[in-house]
């Protein structure tokens, strides 16, 4: 199976560990990734906060490139990117007039026919049976708290993925691979996302609540599918510990890390050695 790939800025920048992880994990499952040619940034929170039209035009340019190059499916492992792409997708579906207007702005014909997928959806498409067949090392002793954060499931109308209040798609995959995901309370609460630089106090407070609740419910690691969640829970975890005088000691894995480990890939290939919090 070959699909289009929109890495987004984070996976080519300080979240390159997620990029390595996604590529290695999907390659082991026989999924080839065709990176979108000369893709541009989706605009993220900055665009939708400051300029509504730009927030649709930037992702629409990427959908137009995908359409031009015949990519019918596009994986965007960053939920911020996939949400912005899906918002553009929905806006393009609204009218022919709008499609004409946006095509003019992005200087390429764009109909919004490309299907945008997150990492979990690609794994679901591969199929639990296939993943399980390729498993060489069951995830025994892993008791992850699966953390979805905001943008994997919200806004529900745009994303139409899983249950926005009680998602279970990551648990279903990991349970199949021998892990024992815990039941906990804050799997869809926000970590502060892109406020890491602009408002660190908020990020530390929210991340502290999330890490604390996961540990209280017996988790021995966290699993995320978002580069911003990873930055706030992993890179900022030492700051959380200092601020609140605690030792969370929770390794934060990307979903593709744990699936990759079950497939027999090593930590270095998956980029796990680039995380801040390491296994004791």
């Amino acid at each position: 199976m070959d699909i289009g790939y929109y890495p987004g800025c984070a996976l080519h920048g300080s979240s390159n560990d997620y990029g390595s992880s996604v590529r290695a994990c999907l390659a082991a499952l026989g999924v080839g990734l065709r990176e979108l040619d000369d893709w541009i940034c989706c605009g993220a929170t900055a665009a939708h906060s400051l300029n509504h039209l730009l927030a649709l035009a930037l992702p629409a340019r990427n959908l137009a490139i995908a359409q031009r190059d015949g990519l019918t499916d596009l994986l965007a492992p960053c939920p911020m990117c996939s949400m912005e792409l899906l918002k553009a997708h929905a806006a393009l579906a609204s009218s022919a007039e709008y499609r004409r207007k946006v095509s003019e702005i992005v200087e390429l014909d764009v109909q919004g026919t490309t299907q945008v997928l997150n990492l979990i959806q690609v794994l679901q498409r591969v199929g639990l049976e296939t993943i399980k067949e390729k498993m060489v090392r069951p995830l025994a002793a892993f008791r992850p708290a699966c953390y979805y954060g905001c943008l994997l499931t919200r806004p529900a109308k745009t994303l139409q993925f899983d249950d926005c209040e009680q998602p279970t798609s990551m648990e279903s995959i990991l349970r199949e691979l021998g892990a024992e995901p815990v039941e906990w309370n804050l799997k869809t609460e926000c970590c502060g996302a892109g406020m890491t630089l602009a408002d660190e106090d908020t990020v530390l407070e929210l991340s502290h609540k999330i890490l604390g609740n996961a540990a209280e419910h017996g988790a021995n690691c966290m699993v995320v599918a978002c580069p911003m969640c990873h930055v706030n829970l992993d890179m900022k975890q030492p700051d959380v510990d200092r601020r609140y005088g605690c030792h969370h000691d929770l390794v934060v894995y990307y979903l593709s890390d744990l699936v990759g480990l079950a497939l027999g890939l090593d930590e270095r290939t998956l980029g796990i050695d680039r995380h801040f919090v390491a296994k004791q």
Partner: protein
Amino acid sequence: MAQTSVGDCYQCGKCSAGCPMAEHMDLLPNQLVRLVQMERLDRALRCEAIWKCVSCMTCSTRCPKSVDCAGVLDALRQLAVERGIAAPERRRTVLFQQAFLDNIRRNGRLCELELIGVFKTKAFLADRNIPLLMKDALLAPQLIKRGKFHLRGERVRDRGIVERIFAKCQAPLAASPPAAVASNNSHPT
């Protein structure tokens, strides 16, 4: 945001009940929606709450009347900046977002180091806060050690198209107010 009909809100308070930042807000999300309904933008634009919002979309997702509450807050922030109402210490979020977009406009993709440099400088010039300027400096060696630090960010080949998209999107914007607020027909003077 364009579909938001603030008038539909019947003040059930579900948005505020689920908001992770509610305890830090001087006005709750449902109160902000009410102020917009009553065309009391003067009060809404001067509160701290709009700067506490983390855009997690919980409010919009749970609203039984499908009011895009998060979109309303987005629009209020945008207006507060346009009208120069936001106090400097409340403007770090906007400065960050402006630096972010400026970065994309020039490079097509985010150059993280440049973003941090520009944001820190602008934020310092706005509030002269030295601890905030220096914070995160210790993170650099940690990021270098992990190969996560890129001196030169990536740039797209066709930077002309990025520049043209920005120009075309910015031209008509100055003339029209944000849709979420406009849809309530509120035109405060």
